[in-house]
């Protein structure tokens, strides 16, 4: 982070922040996903940017608007870069794709290792990402990257207040009991939850820019990670079997008229399913 004194009638320091946003492309929520066999899923080929990562990009852009600096979007993906292009379309300055055939079959920990390997020698101030990806619903990569980089992190943030990046910032995190308020200093990693902001719709000028953008591709050698740490053989977890969601028995419609139907419902809930 470089501090540049801005001359003139304000004594405000404009700091140049290095912000990285970790993004992922996931199947569209409307995509049809079926269990093909024990070991295979059939996924309709409609991909989009993970919704929570969009919120992270927006948060990064807002920080840049306030303090100046650079927003870079990062992804680990061998096939698609939709999320990177979307990041640029929203206004990110740079996009990096970490891609390597040996990454195929990696678990979230290996992905985190790849990201951390790239980031470890960069002068980052802030790393942002979504609270979880909408495909694996895991929420592992963010915290794992923070652990590898040895920086504090806060997950599920719904509020971020920073007046001076060199001082403590106030972070609000969603917990069951309400909102937890924390203070944290940079560098740090935050995972973003819905409610933090409303991601901007890309302006067509930036959409054009994103369409033409050159995305930097880096392989494992470029980031200094060994193949032994990634891929299927290094995975700590494996899917043994895919299952369709549990099916409920057909609904029992209570056909009696009002108010008998209410009485019958209460009776069933007490005597049959025994939940009250």
């Amino acid at each position: 982070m470089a501090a540049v004194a801005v001359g003139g009638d304000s004594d405000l320091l404009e700091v140049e922040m290095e912000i990285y946003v970790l993004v992922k492309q996931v199947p569209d929520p409307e995509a049809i996903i079926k269990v093909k066999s024990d070991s295979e899923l059939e996924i309709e080929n409609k991909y989009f940017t993970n919704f929570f990562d969009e919120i992270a990009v927006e948060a990064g852009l807002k920080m840049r608007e306030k303090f100046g600096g650079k927003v870079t979007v990062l992804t680990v993906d061998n096939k698609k870069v939709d999320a990177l292009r979307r990041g640029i379309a929203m206004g990110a300055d740079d996009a990096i794709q970490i891609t390597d055939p040996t990454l195929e079959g990696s678990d979230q920990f290996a992905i985190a290792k790849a990201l951390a390997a790239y980031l470890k020698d960069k002068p980052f101030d802030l790393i942002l990402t979504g609270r979880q990806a909408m495909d694996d619903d895991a929420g592992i990569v963010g915290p794992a990257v923070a652990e590898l980089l040895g920086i504090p992190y806060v997950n599920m943030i719904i509020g971020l207040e920073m007046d001076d990046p060199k001082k403590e910032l106030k972070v609000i995190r969603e917990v069951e009991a309400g909102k937890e308020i924390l203070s944290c200093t940079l560098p740090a990693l935050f995972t973003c939850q819905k409610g933090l902001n409303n991601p901007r719709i890309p302006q067509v000028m930036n959409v054009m820019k994103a369409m033409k953008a050159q995305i930097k591709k880096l392989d494992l050698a470029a980031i200094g990670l060994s193949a032994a740490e990634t891929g299927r053989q290094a995975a700590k977890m494996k899917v043994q079997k895919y299952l369709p969601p549990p099916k409920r028995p057909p609904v029992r419609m209570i056909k009696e008229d009002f108010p008998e139907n209410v009485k019958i419902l209460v009776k069933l809930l007490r005597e049959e399913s025994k939940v009250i």
Partner: protein
Amino acid sequence: MLIVDGRKWIKCHNLPSTFHPPISKGVIMSNEIWVFVEQQEGKVRKVTFELLSAGAEFSKKIGSPLAAILLGSGLQEVVKSLSPFADKIYLVDDPSLASYTSEAYSINMAPLIKEHPPVVLLGAATSTGRDLFPRLAMHLQTGYAPDCTGLAIEENGKLIAKRPLYGGKVFAEMVFSEARPQMATVRNNTFLINQNLNKSAQVIPISLQRDPSSFKKKVLGLEKAAGTKLDITEADIVVAAGRGIKAPENFKILEELADALNASVGTTRATVDEGWRDQKDQIGKSGKNISAKLYMAFGISGAIHHVLGIGTCKTVVAVDTDPNALIFNYADYGIVGDLFKIVPALTEELKKVFAADK
């Protein structure tokens, strides 16, 4: 294989209730079953008791002791309430741990775990569990299955974790590599609490491994959510209304029903987007997944985004004026009717029935 799943509670061992696995007194052992305890203000969360109950079944099956791992400050009451549920309690009690942070707890648990790796480390899929476990797993270089809806253990200690993917459109059974412990966070109401474990836990105090006071992240405070009800992810009973409620003030009838049932009030994306209800009450894909024992949906059409959030609820009741509403495909009981008539009548009937119980 013992299947410990919210819907089926199958005992396939017939062990005498006096069975205790052998414990070397005062020594931490490897290959134990550990459950991370969630507590707040001296009270243990219900889900921890559920996990200890499951842990007890696993313990019997593989012949390993069950231990609760507890960090915090001023934990006397907590230890007392845990005692019947575990063989051991590993206790790190220090004022610097009064507020939970992932950094503080992770750094104080890791050395213990590394020296004597448990075969399994379980936690709740709460904001705490899902905050702590990924960091810890990365540090320990071990596998971690988040937000599980079912667990099973084989005699050789291999854990099988069932968890939803793609928001619940499919489920996966995960298995782990050789690395230990096998870590998992589990949704509440996946297991039943076994009140008859009748253990008497041996408390093993562990000294503070690292003082977190100098850490860069500190908890300043908690802004409690308005109202006294539990968060929808923790409540046993959740009642919800969607667009059919027509106006924000009409939620009053739902709150009265919730009072009668000691339930929490949830809602759908439609009302949150309108600004009628808070984001924290939203059930569905971009909201929360709930695992209530009873979920009642009023005036909710049943769009896929919403119903994926209620898949693991035990019993679902749906009330809607449209007989073709999709919600009925996901319910156990359904009524085609006007919620404005049914909800108040339901409240009255419940009050009557509960009063008669007393």
